[in-house]
């Protein structure tokens, strides 16, 4: 009997923890601290936790299916898989951001060059590219 009591206690905290995490996620989205598109994976991972917490027998079923001798270890495996997926997801986002940042920097450098050419042409009158209207002012040096 003691074992059952212990399990349900763990179950209570597991459900509570999952719900709190999901609510925290929603709060972040509401406060515009997290874009919805980057929260989907988190939501997926937390939902898996919640489902496992609610249906306690699921973990044992999965452990048996995968041949894991010590059922509680299954939760760590799921956790690690979830974290790896999230990290990979972030790596793709970082790569994309770096690509865009590089693109922007090159465009900025080209615009500055054009606006210098525009300034020079204003006094000398040489041909070149159109000066950007309202573009950034060329810094000296």
């Amino acid at each position, binding site marked *: 009997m003691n074992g059952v009591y212990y399990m349900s206690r763990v179950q209570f905290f597991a459900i509570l923890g999952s719900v709190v995490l999901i609510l925290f996620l929603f709060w972040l989205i509401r406060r515009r601290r997290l874009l919805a598109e980057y929260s989907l994976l988190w939501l997926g991972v937390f939902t898996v936790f919640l489902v496992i917490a609610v249906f306690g027998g699921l973990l044992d079923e999965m452990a048996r299916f995968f041949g894991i001798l010590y059922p509680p270890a299954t939760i760590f495996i799921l956790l690690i898989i979830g974290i790896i997926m999230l990290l990979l997801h972030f790596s793709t986002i970082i790569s994309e951001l*770096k690509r865009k940042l590089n693109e922007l920097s*090159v465009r900025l*450098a*080209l615009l500055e060059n054009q606006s210098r050419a525009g300034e020079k042409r204003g006094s000398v009158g040489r041909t070149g590219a159109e000066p950007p209207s309202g573009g950034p002012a060329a810094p000296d040096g």
Partner: protein
Amino acid sequence: MKLLAIVPAYNEEGSLPGLIESIRAHLPEADILVVNDCSTDGTAGVVSSAAGIEYLDLPFNMGIGGAVYAGMKYFLSRDYDILVRLDGDGQHPPEQARSLVREVAAGADMAVGSRYILQGGTYSSTMRMMGIKLLAGISRIMLGRAFTDNTSGFRAFSRRAVECLASDFPDDFPEPEEIYILHKNGFSIAEVPVVMKDRTAGISSISLLRTWYFLVKVLLTIFVKYTLGGKR
């Protein structure tokens, strides 16, 4: 044929003035574009005060790949026909750029200045030579042609080659990948013997680490992107 010489430069205030003079002397018809890769020394001042050249100031240090990419974008925004790259550290002697430009003018899409066509060309440490030999072997297996100097940045390009490269330019060490991209897309590549000035006497632990990082990254990119039906 309108020619643009791009000079990627990071902290090269000492060598730039001489290099620019030398480019003017040996490629008098070329416009010169220096890409200042956010140098922390007086490069920006040297470049902005030099008469008759254009320059780009990158807002942060983007590495050689980013600097060359910026130069290519500038090239494409004007009506140039041939691009030639000479690094700001002066290891690519302008007097030898003519033979690269001539190859492209004669119809090649890229001319690679190779240190290893003429005999007696051992410029680098044993470790680097092994890497260069390895890359040559890999290009023989994967492209059916052993490019002798995959890592040489001393190159000239046709406009259509630049258009192709700029559509998805490699980030960090672009040289070997340029060969794979252009070869896989059916562009013609010529190798031209050159002699470079090697300014690296001895090899520090950091550059040894960089050599390894470079090799692993290039091999990973080549295998993942250009094998098993990779389209570029």
